[in-house]
C-alpha cells in the first residue's frame, strides 16, 4: 500500500469512528431515548437495555479505533517532524494533539465507569429478597444509576464535539482553535 492509500484508509476509519461516537450518541440520546416513552415502561426498559448493550460495543470499537487510525494518519501524513523533541508541549499543533489525547482518555474513563459500574446496577432485577425495603433500595440505586448514565453520556457528547473542534482546528488551521 502506498502512503496515499494508508492516508485514505486511516482518514476513513478516523471519520467512521467519530461518526459512530458523535452521530450515534446523538441518535441514541435524542431519537431512540425519547421514543421509549411511547411504549410501556417494562418494554422501554428492555429496549433501553438491549440498545445500550449494542451501542456500547460500537462505542468501545470507536474508542479503540481513534488512536489506531489517528496514529496511522499521523505517520502517513509525515507529521512526526512537527512533534520532535519538546514540540509536543510547545507548539500549537502539539498542544492541540495533546488536548485531544487527554480528552480521549477522559472518554475512555467515563466509558469504563458506565460499562463496569453503572450498567451492572441498571441490569439488577428488583426481587422480593430483603422485603419491601430491599426492593425500594434497589429501585433507588437504579434511579441514581440512570441519572448518572444520562449525565455522563451528555458530558461525553460535549467532550466528543469539542474533540471534533480541536481536530478541525488542527486540520484546517494551526491548532488550538
Amino acid at each position, binding site marked *: 500500500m502506498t502512503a496515499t492509500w494508508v492516508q485514505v484508509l486511516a482518514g476513513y476509519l478516523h471519520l467512521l469512528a467519530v461518526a459512530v461516537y458523535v452521530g450515534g450518541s446523538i441518535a441514541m440520546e435524542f431519537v431512540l431515548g425519547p421514543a421509549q416513552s411511547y411504549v410501556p415502561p417494562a418494554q422501554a426498559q428492555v429496549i433501553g437495555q438491549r440498545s445500550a448493550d449494542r451501542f456500547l460495543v*460500537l462505542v468501545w470499537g470507536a474508542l479503540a479505533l481513534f488512536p489506531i487510525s489517528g496514529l496511522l494518519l499521523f505517520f502517513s501524513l509525515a507529521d512526526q517532524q512537527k512533534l520532535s523533541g519538546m514540540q509536543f508541549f510547545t507548539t500549537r499543533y502539539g498542544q492541540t494533539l495533546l488536548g485531544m489525547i487527554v480528552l480521549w482518555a477522559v472518554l475512555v474513563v467515563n466509558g469504563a465507569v458506565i460499562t463496569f459500574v453503572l450498567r451492572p446496577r441498571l441490569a439488577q432485577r428488583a426481587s422480593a429478597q430483603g422485603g419491601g425495603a430491599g426492593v425500594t433500595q434497589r429501585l433507588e440505586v437504579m434511579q441514581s444509576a440512570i441519572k448518572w448514565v444520562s449525565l455522563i453520556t451528555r458530558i461525553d457528547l460535549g467532550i466528543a464535539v469539542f474533540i471534533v473542534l480541536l481536530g478541525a482546528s488542527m486540520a484546517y488551521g494551526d491548532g488550538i482553535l
Partner: protein
Amino acid sequence: MRVVLGFLFTLAWVVYLGGALAMELVWRPVQRDVPPSQTGAMCQWMGRRYRWIGLGALGLVAVTWSGWRALGSTVLVASSPDIPAPPPAAVGWSVATTVACWGTLVALVLAMGVLLHPRSHARWRAGADSATAAAARRRRLRAIRVMGVLLRVELAVALSATALVLVSAGPRLGWAA
C-alpha cells in the same frame, strides 16, 4: 473562518452518518424483539424526529461546503499545507461525486420522510369494508418493506460518499475542493 466551516461540515456529516449507522446497527436488531404495535409507535415518533435531524445535517453540509467553495479552499479532513493541490480533473470528478451523493441522500431522506413514512403509519377508517382495509394494509406493508431497503441504500451511499471523496482527493487527503 476556515476552522469554523471545517468543524461544522465535519460535525454535520458525522451526525448524519452516525445516525444512519446507529439506526442500522442498534435499532434495527433491537426492534426484531419488540411487539409490532410498539415498534410502530416508536418508529412513528423516531421517523419524524430523524427526518429533521437528517435534513438539517445534510443542509448544513451543503451550506458549509458552499462556504468553502466561496472561500476557494479545499475542505480537508487532514492535510499538510506543503502538499500541492490536486489536479483540476481530480477536483472536478470529486465535486461531481460529492454533489451526486448529496443529492441522492437528500432524495432518499425526503422519499422516506414525506412519502413512505406517513404511508407506513396510515390508518384506515373504522367503517371501511374488508377489501379497502386489506388494500390499505398491503400498501402499509409495502411502504415498510421499501423503507427498510431504502434505509440500507442510504447507509451504503453515505459510507461510499465518505470513501469516494477521500479517495478522489488523492494525496491531499480530504473532501472535495
